């Protein structure tokens, strides 16, 4: 197939589309509010109204404002309705014939929508994720074809490097540099892994991308594979995301059938096969070496790096691991150019970032914003502020991140600024907390998470998180003294510096950031000195020196 043919396919698909399209969200959030029934009711209403020849109803992915689901939007004029009930379907269709609807109208000009910049989510909510033809109609797989026909692997790596794209899985490692490291390896067997483990509780960007636009991720993987010289890829998805898995399976089947994946892709010598591997409920498997172990059918315990997966990863072969969102950025960078991408964002953090906005905020859902936007703009303007009063803190980075106080909301969102505040960019979870949220409780919540999710391999994380959790529990119960807080801080230092993997190394972050900004909440819970003697003192028969 040549570009002209691919474009022809896209045009044909577009020509077949009916002039009026009613899009109905069928991502997991809206599905749980009965959007399937809404879609059916809309389809029936179109038939009843005799409009079937020029109106179509299509299931699409996430339209972002999840709190208002099920969401329905009507093209071409873009009217959007929220909390749609199947009973309102007839009147929504009626508006096409000049009628009125009692359905709740959503203002698509409000900052929540207006201030978004769409790259990763540009097809989300616009196309049917279960039809490859829909993806083709928006230019899908043209970037892959272009790469195979016009670019050397080196040029692809170089383009990614120039774009300034950094990993969206949390650590922010420059994507082009990572690809280059693997491309240089002489090995004949190499792998590409898409990290779709999204374990950070409170994050749902990757789920949304997979449910709304799975081909975008597959295309990114194929381009990556071409650049580094891999012929096999894996998508490692959380077992908790059945719909994402289902849609990925459909997408893979269609892509193989169409010849955009598999052997001799686009009649070139390039072969690339993708398989799905399903996680089984372990946060630590998002860590790259644990993830590799899990794909190899083992316990998901991290192993020390070096060697990095770029040299020795899956079955000891050089392995590229990228996050879902990172890979979803690849095709547009190829299509529109590295310079275009690098023009968005800040000096060191390029492009956009998708955040999952949730918690005590009016508008919950997904926002894609240019790097460098302030937190205030996201939570107060786009998010509409907190319904119950004032915002106290914003949590980013989940259990590896920290709580940013309201006083720092004017900080721009980029990797370095968030790290300087004691949090991290993380994968994109953003939880808003209001005055009712107790910060020591939050620290305890995350420590319990890390304790339960610790793989147990290394001592500081396995045993240290337990002790930190117990200290936090004592503080919350009002049984602790200043000495316990000092003990807690010492343990934070130990666990951060001596743990084997990122889980343990970052587990202290929620404690450290709440201590940094909300220490008075800790102090208010403390007992006055003198401290009770440490409980351990009496019982332990100390080791006797050998004699």
């Amino acid at each position, binding site marked *: 197939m040549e570009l002209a043919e691919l474009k022809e396919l896209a045009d044909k698909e577009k020509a077949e589309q009916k002039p009026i399209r009613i899009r109905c969200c069928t991502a997991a959030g809206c599905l749980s509010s009965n959007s399937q029934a809404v879609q059916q009711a809309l389809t029936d209403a179109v038939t009843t109204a005799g409009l079937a020849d020029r109106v179509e109803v299509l299931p699409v992915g996430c339209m972002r404002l999840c709190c208002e689901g099920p969401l329905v939007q009507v093209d071409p004029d873009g009217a959007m309705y929220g909390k749609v009930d199947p009973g309102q379907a007839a009147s929504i269709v009626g508006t096409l014939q000049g009628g009125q609807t009692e359905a709740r109208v959503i203002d698509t000009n409000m900052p929540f929508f207006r201030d978004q910049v769409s790259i990763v989510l540009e097809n989300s909510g616009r196309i049917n994720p279960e039809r490859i033809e829909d993806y083709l109609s928006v230019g899908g797989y043209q970037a892959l074809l272009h790469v195979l026909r016009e670019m050397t692997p080196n040029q692809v790596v170089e383009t990614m490097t120039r774009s300034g794209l950094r990993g969206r899985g949390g650590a922010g490692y420059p994507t082009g540099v990572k690809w280059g490291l693997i491309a240089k390896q002489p090995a004949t067997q190499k792998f590409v892994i898409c990290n779709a483990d999204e374990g950070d509780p409170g994050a749902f960007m990757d789920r949304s991308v997979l449910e709304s636009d799975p081909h975008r991720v597959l295309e990114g993987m194929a381009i990556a594979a071409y650049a580094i010289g891999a012929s096999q890829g894996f998508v490692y998805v959380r077992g908790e995301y059945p719909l994402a898995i289902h849609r990925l399976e459909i997408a893979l089947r269609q892509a193989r059938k169409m010849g955009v994946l598999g052997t001799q892709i686009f009649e070139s010598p390039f072969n690339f096969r993708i398989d799905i591997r399903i996680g089984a409920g372990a946060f630590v498997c998002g860590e790259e070496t644990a993830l590799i172990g899990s794909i190899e059918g083992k*316990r998901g315990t991290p*192993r020390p790096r070096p060697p990095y997966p770029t040299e020795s990863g899956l079955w000891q072969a050089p392995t590229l691991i990228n996050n879902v969102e990172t890979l979803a950025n690849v095709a547009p960078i190829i299509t529109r150019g590295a310079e275009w991408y690098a023009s968005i964002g800040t000096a060191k953090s390029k492009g956009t970032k998708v955040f999952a906005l949730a918690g005590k905020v009016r508008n919950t859902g997904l926002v894609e914003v240019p790097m460098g936007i302030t937190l205030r703009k996201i939570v107060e303007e786009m998010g509409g502020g907190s319904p119950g009063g004032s915002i106290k803190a914003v949590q980013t980075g989940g259990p590896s991140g920290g709580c940013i106080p309201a006083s720092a909301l004017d900080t721009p969102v980029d990797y370095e600024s968030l790290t300087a505040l004691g949090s991290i960019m993380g994968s994109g979870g953003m939880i808003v907390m209001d005055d009712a949220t107790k910060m020591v409780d939050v620290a305890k919540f995350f420590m319990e998470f890390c304790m339960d999710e*610790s793989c147990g391999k290394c001592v500081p994380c396995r045993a240290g998180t*337990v002790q930190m959790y117990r200290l936090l529990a004592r503080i919350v119960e009002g049984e602790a003294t200043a000495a316990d807080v000092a003990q807690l801080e010492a343990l934070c230092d130990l666990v951060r510096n*001596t*743990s084997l993997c990122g889980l343990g190394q970052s587990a202290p972050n929620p404690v450290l950031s709440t201590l940094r900004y909300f220490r008075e909440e800790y102090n208010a819970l403390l007992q006055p000195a003198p401290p009770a003697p440490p409980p351990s003192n009496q019982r*332990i028969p100390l080791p*006797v020196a*050998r004699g």
Partner: protein
Amino acid sequence: MNSITLTIDGKLISAPGDQTILEAARENDIHIPTLCNLEGISAVGACRVCLVEVSGSNRLAPSCLTKVAEGMQVQTATDRLREYRKMIVELLFAERNHICSVCVANGNCELQDLAVTVGMDHVRYEYQYPSCSVDVTHKEFGVDHNRCILCTRCVRVCDEVEGAHTWDVSGRGMQSRVITDLNQPWGTATSCTSCGKCVQACPTGALFRQGSTVAEMKKDRELLDFLMTAREKKQWIG
């Protein structure tokens, strides 16, 4: 392998380029504490007591896994490292029920030795008091989970040296336990060849020979050293 030079604790050392910091230090009589490491089986870097400071890096490096490099400057016993080691040992003591005075390994236990080396005089952390069982169903050996530090030396020696893979770890985090076969009584684990290597590899009194005295436990350990040297270096020195 070409030889490289580095300094460990200020001492100029030359070592083969494929050695780990730990090996190079040991050959030069510099003692770095270890728990999960055992010569002759793979290194896992799990206990973290062998961490050292390498100048130019802000990350601590596990010396059992980090290879020496030309011009490397290593510190093995700074105040910070000493404090970390002490804390790690205390965490281990608080994690299970270690009562040295009634343990078969008393006086011959790597954990106990390390507690003495790091100068542990009490445990600052709350005892977890997990409920742990003792399994004496095997005709010769026993396992006392109260004393297990999850170093996985038994797992590795059984898999890598004996080839039986009777042992593995079940659960995760603080629920982790070493198991035999399908988490069944050791005596019923059909894959076990009763070779006793795990007992010899165990740094604490968690795995023991039934009815053994302290002196016999010590002899066992030497037997394993013999075996490892034989395997690794093809030298049969008893």
